[in-house]
């Protein structure tokens, strides 16, 4: 167990591990997105109320899910980085932030596209989910801005980690306060959450959620690899990686 934990903290080890998994995850994600889109856009029947407009959920729901998951990954990595002073955890948090922010933006954009035919407006202030996502986007942007504003990397990592932890407490309160607020303003709810989706609609959605998550993982690993290289640019194993052949990499991993 401890050996495993120790290995996980070793940059060359994680660099190789991420490099091994990223292409597989990306390939699986692309296949999954293909299958999911076919099932969702072509095979699934049109909704009896929303027509074809409902099909945007095949992008919207996975994006919204990953926007939250991205923040959780960032916060958990920050906690690990702060408590155990594991530098690699900070690299994970820094790598996850822009991906999470992108998915938050995608969730907002697709929600807005869906809102136009359904609600007759691009932006519905009284919808609590849209508000929460918008605040989440601001929190992501705040984290990234703070991290880039502090020049010293260790300081930036640790300051960002504190912010991410404060933010995760805050986002829960924001979510419930916005929900309470919108109930006062009679938010229109077209989506009936109790309605059961037929399998022909639900299966593609589940496939899309899994494939989007795999894509998230693949991008996270790719970003993590470049982040690790950037941080370890003075380490011996990176120099050997750049100058030497691939066979010396494993030797370098033992020395580092």
């Amino acid at each position, binding site marked *: 167990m401890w050996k495993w934990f120790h290995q996980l903290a070793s940059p060359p080890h994680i660099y190789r591990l991420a490099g091994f998994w990223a292409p597989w995850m990306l390939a699986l994600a692309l296949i999954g997105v293909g299958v999911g889109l076919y099932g969702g856009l072509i095979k699934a029947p049109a909704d009896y109320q929303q027509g074809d407009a409902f099909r945007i959920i095949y992008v919207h729901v996975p994006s919204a899910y990953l926007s939250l998951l991205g923040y959780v990954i960032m916060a958990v990595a920050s906690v690990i980085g702060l408590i155990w002073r594991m530098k690699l955890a900070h690299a994970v948090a820094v790598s996850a932030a822009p991906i999470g922010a992108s998915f938050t933006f995608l969730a907002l954009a697709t929600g807005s596209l869906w809102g136009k035919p359904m609600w007759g407006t691009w932006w519905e202030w009284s919808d609590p989910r849209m508000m929460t996502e918008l*605040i989440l986007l601001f929190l992501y942007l705040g984290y990234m801005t703070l991290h880039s504003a502090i020049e010293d990397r260790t300081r930036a990592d640790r300051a960002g980690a*504190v912010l991410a932890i404060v933010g995760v407490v805050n986002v829960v309160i924001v979510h419930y306060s916005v929900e309470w607020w919108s109930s006062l303003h009679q938010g229109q709810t077209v989506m009936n959450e109790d309605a059961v989706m037929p399998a022909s609609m639900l299966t593609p959605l589940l496939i899309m959620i899994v494939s989007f998550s795999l894509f998230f993982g693949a991008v996270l690993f790719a970003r993590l690899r470049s982040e690790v290289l950037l941080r370890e640019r003075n380490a011996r194993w990176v120099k050997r990686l750049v100058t030497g052949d691939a066979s010396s990499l494993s030797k370098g991993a033992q020395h580092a």
Partner: protein
Amino acid sequence: MGSDPTDDQHSVVIRAVELRPLTVFAVMLGREWRLALRRLTDAINPLFFFAVVATLFPLAISPQRAVLQTIGPGVVWVAALLAALLPLNALFSQDHGDGTLEQYVLAGQSLVALCIAKTVALWLVAGLPLVLVSALIAQSYAMPVEAMPTLALSLSLGSYTLCALGAVAAALTVGVQRASALIALLVLPMMVPVIIFGTRAVVLASGGEPAAGPLYLLAATATLAAVLTPLAIAAALRISLE
């Protein structure tokens, strides 16, 4: 902390003069208060800002009494929050510039007590005056007199939450050049619950309805912020001096 032996020797010397957290709090509060009195313009500027911003809304929207009554609670709340952001940048930057901040951390006293004192002092200087001025502005927006106590109470609680969260942002950005915009970006999204509960309480009170519900929620967020943020401020200060 203090895991290696050389560190321990130092802390033995320091512990001999360690003060009670309450004493640290009182000393620190006294210092901040005296400093604020000597820089009165710094404390007064946000009040002018508050008044000017509140003046612009009737010009921009409408001077009609009905409109003013509708937008009044929101305008007073938003303008007060924006005004309370102004002194945040200077909260730690001056102490950082002359090295006082390092002494806070090295002094071996309770840094958390010190951070609570900093927050309370900030609120006394930057939050409480806004509450007093807000009554005047609310009056000009034709807010009923019965709503004034609710406005004052909600703004007091809300501005304390802002001071506490703002102190976290200020501590995180110590040493960052031109941090004001960054602090606003960090703090304002976190103020969403406070502005929801605060304006709701004032709207209810203006309509003659009981406003206890949102006030309790506001008190809950203020309590949460008062208890948790000193830990984050202390951690952020330690990080910024590493």
